[in-house]
């Protein structure tokens, strides 16, 4: 059978952002894939060195909208380490709440797109409707739907009033059963199972080899979650269950995301119960940041996000480097797409929950 090459992307209906794939296919089967990136490379690592330490909180939040809260959080954690700042307990809980609200919305977005790619449009719209309740939460609590501006160096910019807490609990009471309901559909529906079970398999061995992170790793049986392996903020005080599955297929990755969305709601509830009184930032003024270097990690919705910050005696950082979870997960597509059917390409690519703006910066 002759081999021919088909392009997918850079603009493709199934991908939210531009990425160009060249597939060598034999008949209906993928033989090889080559990934060409760079369509949304904006040189943000360069721009970060041209702004001062505090301005970068705003800039890092704009690297990507889906994990927009994780970037300034990890950046702030690294700077706080350099400056020896202790984030007040209330701010640590508020950071977790912001993080988990984003996680619920982000994970639901990905599983809804899966339903769309399967052709199950009513489920797609239903899951987007559930996500919309979390969007309402973000808009009501933070004043914005995507870039929520929760973090500052030394704490958080927002607070939760008793009234807000009641509203948040009421929204969670609606979202939680809705997630349980759709999880059941994803677990049992024939259309979903037929297109996702045994598709795009990443074995545990290949997952370790590619160093994948987040739900992609946990769906292949790797029990690694930054919230437990390198605890930060208020996570050491909270019950954070880690979900893993063994099969490493598209379905497993979707189920992990649904489970983590449900767990995130539990974590937000724990935070609301435990939320201590006190200040939301360690100082009301801009803290002095001495020279130094530090590394900080957090568990973004897509997995481990790592920041390295180097500060000299200039008000601008000498270097800020970050590696997003998607950056590691692209390579695994070569394994997932091996011998896949052309019709499954979009479903498999979506299953790593790719974040291209994050990857290319």
């Amino acid at each position, binding site marked *: 059978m002759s081999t021919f090459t088909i392009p997918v992307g850079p603009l493709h209906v199934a991908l939210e952002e531009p990425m160009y794939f060249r597939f060598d296919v034999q008949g209906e089967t993928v033989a090889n894939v080559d990934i060409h990136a760079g369509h949304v490379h904006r040189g943000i690592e360069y721009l970060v060195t041209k702004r001062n330490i505090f301005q970068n909180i705003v800039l890092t939040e704009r690297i990507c909208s889906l994990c927009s809260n994780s970037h300034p959080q990890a950046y702030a954690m690294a700077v706080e380490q350099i400056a020896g700042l202790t984030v007040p307990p209330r701010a640590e809980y508020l950071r977790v709440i912001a993080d988990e609200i984003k996680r619920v919305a982000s994970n639901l977005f990905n599983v809804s797109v899966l339903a769309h790619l399967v052709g199950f449009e009513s489920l797609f719209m239903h899951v987007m409707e559930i996500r919309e309740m979390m969007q309402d939460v973000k808009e009501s609590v933070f004043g914005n739907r995507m870039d929520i501006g929760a973090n500052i160096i030394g704490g958080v910019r927002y607070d939760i009033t008793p009234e807000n807490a009641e509203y948040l609990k009421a929204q969670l009471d609606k979202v939680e059963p809705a997630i349980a309901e759709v999880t059941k559909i994803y677990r049992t529906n024939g259309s979903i199972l037929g297109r996702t079970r045994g598709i795009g398999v990443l074995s545990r061995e290949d997952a370790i080899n590619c160093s994948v992170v987040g739900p992609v790793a946990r769906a292949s049986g790797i029990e690694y979650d930054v919230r437990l392996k390198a605890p930060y903020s208020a996570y050491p005080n909270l019950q954070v269950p880690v979900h893993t599955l063994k099969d490493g297929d598209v379905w497993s990755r979707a189920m992990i995301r649904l489970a983590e969305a449900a767990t995130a709601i539990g974590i937000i509830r724990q935070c609301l119960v435990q939320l201590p009184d006190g200040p939301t930032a360690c100082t009301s003024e801009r803290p002095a940041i001495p020279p130094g270097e530090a*590394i900080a990690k957090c568990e973004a919705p897509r997995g481990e996000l790592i920041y*390295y910050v180097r500060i000299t005696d200039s008000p601008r950082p000498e270097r800020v480097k970050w*590696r997003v979870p998607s950056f590691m997960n692209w390579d695994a597509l070569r394994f997932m797409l091996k011998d896949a059917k052309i019709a499954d390409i979009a479903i498999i690519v979506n299953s790593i929950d790719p974040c291209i703006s994050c990857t290319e910066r």
Partner: protein
Amino acid sequence: MSKLFEGLEAPLNEAAPAGIQYTRRTDAKGVGSAWARLASKDDLLRAATLLKQRGARVSTITILQPKAPPAPPPKEGETPVVPTFFGGVPNDGKSFEINYHFDVDGDTLTVVVYVPFGGEVASLTPLYRAADWPEREMMELYSIVVSNHPDPRRLFIDPAIDGAVLERLIPFSALVNSATTKGLWEKILAQTGSNA
């Protein structure tokens, strides 16, 4: 702090015969970070092999050109002394510092090597598949050569653009092909031959 992280200094010292500078710290939540600065970049692969045996993975690679420290004016008749990094690579503002960040079960060990301007460093890809993209990115951002890289093509930046972009000032209007207000306006004026 991870148990794997314990007792790394002595074996790292053995793996890097030219010498290492080792520092470590633990944050308030018990998460460890350590730095191992290698005196010679030639010890990199041996150190990386040891970490691989200990179950580490490459998280990412940070490369930078640290600014040279201000040097006192040389005395008459003496040649100016160029400060050096650990291991003797000149700290002249052009040399590269490469930080390989390894994750050791949640903790981070950063192996640092210094490479003079225009120098070469060994690829970690034979040991760590995950080093592929970070090394490709490092090559397009800086004029550094990674030897034995299996796929040294550009990662994000178009091949038509000269390499080492972080070492050069590129006007934003050129970067985005004049798709920005002032640059675009001037381009239109030049093309229409009118002067505003």
